[in-house]
């Protein structure tokens, strides 16, 4: 298949500002293909922002992103995205099946409608996360764990090679958490690269093989055994770098 040392995601000097206030400074990472990466950092560290700017959902103000060696735009279909749960309107009139089908829209263009092949892919994805029996439910009539599974199914149906997931473990029960971890490992076995925003430090050391420690800037990226150290974690969580965030505040007022 692909060479083992291929780089799935590479960012260089990726910088993001919201209304002139910098929230991410010059992020350089190169994520080897086939790894399961935990993105870890305190609240407001810019974890969601990192994922969104890689996806191009928020514009970056500097630097570049490459996916499997090409600019993001050219490789969009190879990237799957699972948004944070709060960002979803759960009253929206769509069913579980509708959401899973959205994963297949990428290959359809604007006008073509999903057909048999797409429906099968969506069903298989739902089956994999145990949500097929709920296909016709409106998404608001599900528990938090079930809702998370539906959005995982959508990502699976995309059949991408790189996945970016924002806090898939928030608001889910223990059984779902275990099921998701199993699924993530399975995806890695099949050669997928998965990056997961996670905020429980304890389990981060167990779930992932690589960690990306983030707090406005990149603290460290590497194999768990190299970066899951008290010093680096302290550096990540030991408060904001006061000067960095003060300067950011001043920049916002310019």
């Amino acid at each position: 298949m692909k060479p083992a040392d291929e780089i799935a995601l590479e960012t260089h000097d990726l910088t993001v500002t919201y209304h002139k206030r910098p929230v991410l400074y010059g992020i350089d990472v190169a994520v080897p293909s086939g790894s399961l990466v935990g993105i870890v950092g305190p609240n407001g560290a810019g974890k969601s922002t990192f994922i969104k700017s890689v996806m191009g959902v928020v514009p970056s103000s500097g630097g570049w992103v490459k996916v499997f060696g090409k600019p993001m735009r050219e490789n969009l279909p190879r990237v799957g995205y699972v948004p944070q749960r709060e960002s979803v309107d759960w009253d929206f009139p769509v069913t579980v099946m509708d959401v899973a089908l959205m994963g297949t829209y990428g290959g359809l263009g604007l006008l073509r409608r999903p057909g048999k092949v797409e429906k099968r892919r969506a069903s298989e994805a739902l089956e994999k996360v145990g949500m097929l029996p709920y296909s016709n439910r409106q998404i608001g009539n599900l528990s938090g764990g079930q809702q998370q599974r539906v959005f995982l199914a959508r990502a699976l149906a995309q059949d991408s090679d790189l996945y970016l997931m924002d806090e898939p473990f928030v608001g889910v029960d223990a059984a779902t958490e275990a099921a998701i971890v199993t699924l993530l490992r399975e995806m890695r076995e099949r050669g997928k690269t998965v990056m997961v925003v996670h905020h429980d430090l304890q389990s981060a050391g167990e779930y992932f093989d690589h960690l990306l420690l983030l707090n406005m800037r990149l603290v460290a990226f590497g194999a768990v055994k190299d970066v899951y150290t008290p010093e680096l974690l302290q550096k990540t969580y030991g408060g904001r770098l006061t000067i960095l965030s003060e300067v950011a505040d001043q920049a916002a007022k310019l």
Partner: protein
Amino acid sequence: MFEDVSFLASMIDLLIPGSGSGKAIMAAVLLGASCGLLGCFVVLRRVALMGDAVSHAVLPGVVAGLIYSAERSPGVIFLFAAAAGLLGACLVRLMMFSTRLKSDAALGIVLATFFAFGIMWQSRNQQDTVGVMNFLFGNIGSIDASDLRMMLVTTLILVVTMFFLRRPLLMMSFDEGFSRGLGYPVKILNGVFYFLLTFSVVVALQAVGVVLVSAMLITPAAAAYLLTDRFERMLILSVVFGVASGISGGLVSAEVNGLPTGPVIALSATLLFGIIYLLAPRHGVLSKVARTLRRGMRVRRENTLKAIYQIHEGEGFAHEEVSVLMLARKRGQTEEKVNKDCKALLSRGFIEMAEDGVSLHLSRLGWKRAMEIVRNHRLWELYLTNEADYAEDHVHEDAEKIEHILEPGIVRQLEQHLDFPELDPHGKPIPQPAHLVTQSSVVPS
């Protein structure tokens, strides 16, 4: 090419009815369809205020059309109106983008400015703009064949575009970030949406009027939203409601002298909405109230059952019967109230009354349910003290609520998790309804 166009034009003319009421009905159908369709997206994207702003913003366009088109060609008026509406929408976006203002403030400013400008301009040109009242408050009777032709073409464009783009437009409304990830041209689609929104406003303009067009965008779609959880059904229902309120409002205002069409149509839409607001099966108010009442009554019944169980437990399960008076004392309520509760339990087969009518005993079903409730309560207390580190005297209140909603699956998980406990945190035994095999009302252990 020219032949095609003239052929199409004659086809369209064939569709236009001759009679005045026929024209009014057709106008109502067109405006109901276009506003109903677009309205669904307006409601789901939460841009109702944007609809309002666009509809007010078209006024200067209408005035310009009336002034600059000598023979009042509807095409010119429509064009100017649409241009003004789009300009308004663009200004709103520009303001949001360039300042820290959120959409509501930006919309409010644009709406008021355009509307005020339109009114001022109109009053400086009174004789050129005689028909402006029709555009302000709507007059379905003033719609003639050439207006209808314009409305028909606009509605056709709108419906066809919507038909082909409904999936991407829906995707965008649901999750704009994901749409970007799919490679959708998000900016262009947003532009298309605001184009269509302006079109639907312009279609409804002469029948409903600038001031109330947004009612046609929002009210039918909102009613449909309360009625269904399926998008396609919502589209259909919304169109049906839009058409229905257009026709009924148009007819009423034609019958009653001096009633402007717009307000009557808007109010018929509101009437429809009101009915659905009350009666909708899942999201309606009455069904919500009924659900709450039913839940409340069930909780009362279960609490009474629990009280009976606790009386038995207090006596060491020595007696078969419990008197209504004892029950009233235990529940801290009047005898009359408890008698009513007992009737409810009796009719559901949870208890049997003795002949004297003042004492009762639990049926087998009653024992089972009572034990379940007490078990749920005590299991939950145990769970909170053991697993969630609650203090022993803090758990009762919470368990009072949770006992009524614990499902069997969760109860099994709790039992396993707590390793099949026998005593609650206060040392009281946790009943085992599963062991209830004897026919007698005396309880095991």
